[in-house]
């Protein structure tokens, strides 16, 4: 939990200037923001396993495969933190007339907010959708390992991976219906469609394969693919958390924006790490993107300086020497730094989006999570 002194200082600051970000970095080192949602986070995986329970042992085993080696649980964490932060706008701790008239002789107290059961369930559903997409991704990408273990297609075969993904989707959608909130059901349905569309976009590196020159639309294509594949789920799950909390349209939109910016920055950093990390750190093979034929942001930036990358991009790094050459070219430019800067720009926007939510430990935690995204070791 944040120490009171630091909390008061950061409550007064705005998140627009560089100075307070430095201040916040110092604070976040001592902050354990997951403490705020520790109880709820602890219920995510067991809850998911319950939702996936089945009489058929093999199916249970397959569907729980990615809930054992948990991963960072970033998506459920965001849903839970957004739930807590936005509950102060419209929850049981929000005053009706405002503190000016209450004259309560109570000590200065900052509520930490609440997480509704429906929002916890939403966090579980979000992680389930993410897991289902991982199971399909493993088949689509012909993966061999994930999170330091054999990937699902290796562990139980392609067909079972795909079908298990469908099973998880079915159970997640069933749970979604029981939230009895058609708006949220609709949002998540579009997430599923977005995830698929993103995969199709990834079949090529660009919409127009005639031009060998780097153009702005190449970046647009990449950002759209990034939105569909990564940011959509994060954005709409944060948005849904605010909807379930019965927040105002402004706050709902703020939650959606925050999720979208953090999600995009997260993917950008992931793409950076694919170039910079060694195999062990990431849990999956580094340079996986190039080997899959994908042109991510670092390559796009390097393309500006080295036109010869154009042919390699269009041909999805087909030739045996392409991957090595591309990597060398990227490393000799500032492609990686440019991508990191781009991610930082998104995080600045994420900080701004949170302005309309009352300050609180939960909101501070959201700022901290955003910062952590761009502080990943690369």
């Amino acid at each position: 939990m944040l120490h009171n002194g630091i909390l008061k200082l950061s409550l007064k600051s705005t998140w627009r200037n560089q100075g307070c970000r430095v201040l916040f970095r110092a604070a976040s080192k001592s902050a354990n923001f997951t403490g705020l949602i520790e109880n709820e986070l602890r219920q995510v995986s067991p809850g998911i396993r319950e939702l996936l329970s089945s009489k058929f042992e093999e199916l249970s085993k397959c569907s729980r495969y990615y809930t054992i080696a948990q991963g960072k649980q970033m998506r459920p964490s965001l849903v839970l933190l957004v739930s807590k932060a936005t509950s102060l706008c419209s929850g049981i701790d929000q005053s009706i007339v405002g503190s000016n008239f209450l004259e309560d002789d109570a000590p200065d107290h900052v509520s930490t907010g609440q997480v509704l059961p429906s929002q916890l369930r939403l966090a579980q559903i979000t992680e389930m959708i993410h897991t289902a997409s991982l199971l399909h991704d493993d088949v689509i990408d012909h993966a061999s390992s994930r999170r330091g273990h054999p990937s699902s297609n290796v562990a139980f075969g392609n067909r079972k991976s795909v079908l298990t993904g469908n099973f998880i989707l079915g159970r997640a959608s069933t749970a979604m219906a029981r939230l009895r909130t058609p708006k949220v059901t609709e949002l998540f349905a579009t997430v599923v469609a977005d995830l698929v569309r993103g995969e199709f976009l990834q079949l090529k590196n660009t919409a127009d394969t005639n031009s060998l020159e780097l153009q702005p639309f190449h970046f647009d294509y990449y950002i759209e693919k990034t939105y569909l594949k990564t940011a959509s789920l994060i954005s709409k799950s944060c948005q849904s958390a605010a909807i379930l909390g019965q927040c105002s349209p402004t706050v709902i939109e703020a939650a959606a924006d925050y999720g979208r910016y953090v999600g995009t920055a997260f993917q950008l950093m992931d793409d950076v790490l694919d170039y910079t990390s060694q195999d062990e750190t990431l849990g999956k093979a580094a340079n996986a993107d190039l080997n899959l034929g994908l042109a991510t942001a670092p390559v796009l930036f390097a393309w500006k300086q080295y036109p010869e990358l154009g042919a390699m991009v269009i041909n999805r790094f087909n030739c045996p020497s392409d991957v090595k050459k591309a990597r060398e070219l990227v490393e000799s430019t500032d492609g990686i730094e440019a991508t990191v800067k781009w991610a930082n720009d998104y995080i600045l926007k994420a900080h701004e989006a949170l302005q309309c939510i009352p300050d609180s430990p939960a909101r501070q935690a959201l700022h901290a999570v955003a910062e952590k995204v761009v502080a990943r070791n690369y």
Partner: protein
Amino acid sequence: MKLPLHIIRNPFLISSYFSANKSGSWASVLLKAVGVLSRDSRWHADLLNVLTEEMGSLNKQLNAWTGNNPLLDRITEPYKRSNTQFFHPLLVLLMSRASRMEGNTSQQMFQRYKQLSRVTELIHAANLIHINIREDQSTEELKLATLVGDYLLGKASVDLSHLESNAVTELMASAIANLVEGHFMKSRSLADAQANERMLLLQSAFLPAKACLSASILNNASTHINKACFTYGRFLGLSMHVAHEDIPEKMEQKTKKMDLLNDYRKNAKDALTVFPDVEAKQALIEIADRVSIA
């Protein structure tokens, strides 16, 4: 012999209309069902055409996104050559008619029935494509098969959410899970008759049952009409599975199977007694009657 107009326009139907095998008799039953529905409303007049067109436009979209990949045809084959193509939509539409209480229905309601029938067909198609994924396929084929099925499931999810019915979403989403459960059950050896029936239910009965029930729910029908729709769909699904399974060698087993099939068909038809609408009921009875071992 005079051919109906929509048959002439659809080459797939022409061949099965004239063929003597089981798929031919199946097609004639479907045509009868279409006839019933056409008389019902002008929005259903060109039904099979509409369905074919809709599936065609999905195919076109997939071609656009994959650059006309030749593997697409091979991947969608399990669905295209299945003799249950368009079965679910027609069943849903007949059920919508049978479970309807008042006389006239708005265009909006017809749109909802159509949406539900589309959801059902998409789930059915996606499942067929995904369960036909084989481990020995090339990386590219695996990738496309996964993506095509996912595309159909994504569309189903969106269409389902547009119906804005929590009950229908719950039912159809659970049907997706049932299909997978049924498939995983397949790998076990099933001596026990009850377990075997459970497997048939999961694989073939719950999707039509839940789709029929969903149609009834959209009509705000009474509990016993809802139950009748579910029961009919359930037994019809069971009978279709048994009829399309491989024919057993031994006479004794074949007789057993015939008995089972007749039992399922009778149960399906019995469920129909509560429906007031004569024409829809008649079409549903005929459908049940036509399900037979080749």
